[in-house]
């Protein structure tokens, strides 16, 4: 029982980590708390729904395609909403407010257009069978989640650490102005970051859609709370912290739901958030960043 709960928790947590990774990367490189991020999550799930239902695509094709499509949505929205604020060097609250307004408009527009009902992926998109190891059951959806998370996170870390693009990204995260002066095309890189992050969010949406088999416009909003908790616990902009915190949140949530009360699941995330803010505001692994005049 406990082992099963732990596995479910780790798998749930790996989607949280995947989701929060893009969010924290966006903050780290672009210095923006971009609240439209949750929308890419919903968008990814709906793209996959359309591809599998209307076009009859198998899930292994729909997952990357939906992620890519969400990435493109992210690039367009970032360009529409944030280029102007980046140019005038607006404070971070301005971009937070703009993306907040935009995401409400997007969710509400999507709900008016598609309806608020919960939709399901077509039956048979994944085989119902599960891998049984002794007492443990691992469903096909969960295996897909694990594979996708490992591939995406590994790919992202390789991109960041091993390629010239990653070097440029890290330079931009450190000091955007200096990076620009060194000949890095920061506008192009910003678009690339949006594409990658939107893709991560979209993939997260498809995977959560598979895991719970429930897709509706506001699903990204519930996920955003998890995203915030993960990046605050892991430290804003900290990729490694986001991974660990994501797994941690998934496990704690699953254990709470399993052993205490499933209704408290949402509250767990929030209590963790407030507790970390009180005790370690720079995140569990972060060092305090002191602002001096």
């Amino acid at each position, binding site marked *: 029982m406990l082992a099963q709960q732990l596995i479910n928790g780790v798998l749930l947590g790996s989607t949280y980590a995947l989701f929060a990774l893009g969010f924290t990367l966006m903050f780290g490189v672009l210095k923006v708390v971009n609240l439209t991020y949750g929308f890419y999550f919903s968008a990814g799930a709906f793209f996959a729904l359309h591809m599998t239902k209307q076009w009859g695509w198998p899930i292994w094709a729909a997952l990357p395609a939906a992620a890519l499509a969400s990435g493109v949505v992210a690039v367009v929205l970032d360009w529409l909403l944030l280029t102007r604020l980046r140019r005038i060097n607006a404070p971070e609250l301005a971009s*937070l*407010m703009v993306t*907040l307004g935009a995401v409400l*408009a997007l969710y*509400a527009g999507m709900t008016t257009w598609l309806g608020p009902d919960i939709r399901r992926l077509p039956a048979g998109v994944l085989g119902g069978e599960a891998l049984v190891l002794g007492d443990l059951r691992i469903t096909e959806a969960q295996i897909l989640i694990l594979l996708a998370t490992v591939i995406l996170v590994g790919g992202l870390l390789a991109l960041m650490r091993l390629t010239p693009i990653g070097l440029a990204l890290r330079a931009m995260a450190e000091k955007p102005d200096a990076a620009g002066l060194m000949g890095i095309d920061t506008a192009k890189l910003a678009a690339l970051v949006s594409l990658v992050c939107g893709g991560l969010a979209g993939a997260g949406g498809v995977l959560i859609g598979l895991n719970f088999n429930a897709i509706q416009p506001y699903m990204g909003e519930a996920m955003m709370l998890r995203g915030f908790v993960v990046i605050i616990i892991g430290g804003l902009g900290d990729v490694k912290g986001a991974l660990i915190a994501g797994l941690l949140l998934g496990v704690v949530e699953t254990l709470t739901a399993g052993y205490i009360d499933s*209704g408290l699941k949402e509250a767990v995330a929030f209590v963790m*958030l407030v507790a970390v803010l009180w005790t370690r*505001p720079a995140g569990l692994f972060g060092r305090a960043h002191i602002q001096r*005049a």
Partner: protein
Amino acid sequence: MMPVWLDDFLWTYQNVVYALGINGLLALSMYVVLAVGQLSLGQAAFMGMGAYASALLTLKLHLPFAVVLPAATIPPVLFALAIGTPTLRLSGVYLAIATIGLGEVLRAVYLNVDALGGALGISGIPERAGMVSIYGLLIAALAILWLVARSGIGRAMEAMREDEIAAAVMGVNVQRYRLGALLASAVLAGAAGALSAHVSSFIGPNEYGFEPAVTILSYALLGGISSPFAPVAGAWILTLLPEALRGFADLRLVFNGLIIVVVVLFLPNGLLPLRMRRWVK
């Protein structure tokens, strides 16, 4: 005695008139936080706490409304303390991030706790609030905030909004002002919640989530924060618009969201003169 036409008018449009007053209070609760250069997205959650607390106090303890109204502001104030104390020491995004999920978390709590009515909410709340209490409170809040804005406190708030480090160097206790503003905002939102619960007879778990939180921000941003009257005007415009244009009601939320985008992006000196000054230098 009221003239007959006024009586008729109030009877027909009673809900709208109440909503104008309550949304005005909510806009003020957002104004107080924006006025110190912070962004709280917990206004709807504070309102919900006030509504639930007041409903329970009235229905279970049968307290008079004069006691219920101030008591209903205690839970939001406690939550504001718990969230504000750690986050207000940090940069501006932390308060926003910590409060943005609060409404959704409480929704889950309201839904799952039987004493709070679960999915059915709480109904049968007696109609204790009315024109006098709603508009009395709104006018009192406007008067106090107007006087504060003109006083030394108001100048300190404006200074820290423009440049918090410079303000701190000049001896403004930034931390204390921010927390004070957040607590005042929790009181206003909690009172607005108690008033709304006692004019609508029903409160439900889904009324205080993400959408109303952003809507309250759109009130304050549309009006701007040049004076306390501006956000109230913003609230009234955005409350009356869906009433005036019926077909508009479906797209109300889309519009509220776009208002925020357009105001922040394109009207830096128009509707928001004070807040935006330093962005365009």
